[in-house]
């Protein structure tokens, strides 16, 4: 439904057709037929006019990279179906995305991050140009061990999934290729470091803390999208992912106890014992994995943005089906700045 209704996809198809015409003309040495060009251009112009129609006011959402599949295949289409607005998403690492907004490289209507810390340090405050003044806690997620069931060690991971062997035994098996996020650019990267350190304490197994090697161990760290691609293409045996990523990409996964998976706000004090300092000098404390949503001052389409945030805050069942945990929608930053239509959804204050 979305595919055929969305003028953007029409434009994309026309553009592709247009490019192909030029391409075949170049390689085939054929002259372009003028009437054809005119027809294509006319359609192109029509699509542009359609896309400007108010009925289809878009909401542009810049979101944490790990949410790509959930946003593009789940929430985006569901939102467009439920409302008259179209959804335009862009995935970037939370930290990188926030910096892009602050540096005026991106001006989205809505920003969804995978870490409240990112909002508090990069976007909130006069030193950041007050680009964000408030945000909602949307949901929680947790770390899981995703693996390749068809790989050489598939059977071993199946055992860990059934909890017949401890999960860390799989990663301690020689030859197993293991990947994780890069802590210097990706919250999942430093959260993975927290996971292993917490696990060392939790299982009284100190060797676990050194299993990842150095923080940016070149044989383990990958950018978010590459990590997933490597596992899906069968070039890695296992990696640490968010549960919602594993579900969206249909990866089988091993779950961790809440004491180490960073899923439960009740364990906040426990998680906070671990910390990481980025190469840029930012000091990050262990904390539960929380998604946030906000409307930055860069907003162009206020109506669709308010509708989108409201849609998210009232879609707990949908979020749950994607693997997120349901938590109170607390407000971070300055709760007085929350737009009037959204205030009814606030369930307390959030202080990191």
């Amino acid at each position, binding site marked *: 439904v979305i595919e055929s209704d969305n003028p953007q996809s029409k434009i994309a198809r026309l553009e592709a057709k247009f490019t192909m015409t030029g391409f075949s003309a170049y390689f085939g040495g054929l002259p372009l037929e003028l009437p054809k060009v005119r027809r294509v251009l006319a359609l192109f112009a029509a699509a542009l006019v359609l896309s400007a129609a108010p009925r289809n006011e878009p909401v542009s959402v810049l979101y944490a990279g790990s949410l790509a599949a959930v946003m593009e295949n789940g929430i985006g289409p569901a939102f467009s179906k439920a409302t008259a607005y179209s959804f335009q998403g862009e995935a970037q690492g939370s*930290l*990188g995305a926030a910096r892009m907004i602050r540096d005026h490289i991106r001006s989205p209507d809505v920003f969804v991050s995978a870490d409240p810390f990112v909002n508090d340090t990069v976007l909130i405050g006069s030193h950041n140009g007050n680009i964000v003044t408030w945000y909602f806690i949307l949901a929680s997620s947790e770390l899981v061990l995703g693996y390749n069931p068809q790989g*050489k060690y598939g059977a071993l991971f199946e055992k860990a999934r059934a909890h017949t062997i401890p999960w860390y035994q799989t990663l301690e098996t020689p030859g197993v290729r293991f990947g994780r996020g*890069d802590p210097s*650019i990706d919250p999942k990267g430093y959260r993975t470091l927290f996971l292993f350190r917490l696990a060392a304490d939790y299982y009284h197994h100190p060797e676990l803390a050194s299993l990842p090697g150095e923080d940016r161990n070149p044989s383990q*760290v990958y*950018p978010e999208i*590459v990590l997933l691609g490597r596992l899906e293409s069968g070039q890695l045996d296992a990696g640490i992912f968010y549960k919602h990523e594993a579900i969206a990409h249909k990866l089988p996964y091993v779950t961790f106890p809440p004491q180490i998976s960073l899923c439960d706000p009740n364990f906040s004090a426990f998680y906070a014992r671990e910390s990481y300092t980025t190469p840029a000098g930012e000091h990050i404390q262990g904390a539960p994995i929380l998604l946030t949503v906000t409307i930055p001052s860069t907003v162009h389409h206020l109506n669709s943005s308010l509708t989108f945030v409201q849609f998210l805050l009232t879609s707990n069942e949908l979020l749950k089906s994607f693997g997120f945990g349901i938590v109170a929608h607390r407000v971070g930053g300055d709760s007085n700045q929350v737009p009037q239509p959204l205030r009814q959804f606030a369930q307390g204050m959030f202080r990191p």
Partner: protein
Amino acid sequence: MTLRARPTFVIFGLLGAGLLVTLLLPILDLAVHADLNGWRTALRTAPALDAIKTSLIASTIALFIMSLLGVPLGYVFARARLRLRRLWISLVFLPLVVPDLAGGILLLRTFGPYGVIGQALSTHHIEATNNLLGIILAQLFVASPFVVISSFAAFANVDPKLELAAATLGDSRWHIFRRVSLPLAWPGIAAGVTLAWIRALGEFGTTLIMAYNPHTLPVYMWVKFESDGLAGAMPVTFCLVILAIAAVVIAMVINHLKGHVDLVAPIGASLEG
């Protein structure tokens, strides 16, 4: 009949000027807002120097391999009695039109530790991703078409009569190639090789997937962009732009030496050979 007298040229010139301004304005902006001292310091840090070293070593090795394998292929395309010549040439174009990330995924599936070739290599304890070899493979994939196409064009532009004359004197193919074809074609080839080198040096998408580590300059630029924002990425951007300008200037100078004016010789003209 001067240029000025023709309205066609005036209109085309204005249209072209619009494009030129669009292309050059971002680079001019970079030059105007340059923080040379700060950037120089940023490029002297250990990770930046490592990235520069990795990029220079990998692209130089890639360049050597590309020339060794690509120039002969260009000669075959231009001079051999080849069936389906256009098909072969189009195939060489493929990596140029395949998106970078797609190229990386294709290479990964072939050379990754559990890929067709990668698996065979790893039984001999050779890894083809996440190291210098992975970077070189990525660079070869995206940049070697430049070498092949420019060699093909340069060899095709050599006057066949000169080669024929050498042949009537009894020279072997190898001698004709070495004494006649190569000396006449080398400026075109060298220009293409220079552009291939800068394409290899600036390669990002394919490299990111094939070898995130060790960081090449473009990957390092992206990491800095992600971790430190725009300010972190600017010094490396500047460094890459300077290298690109240098490559274009070298390519121009090489062509100028031999009196050629076209950076890339017309390809379509000799496709029917």
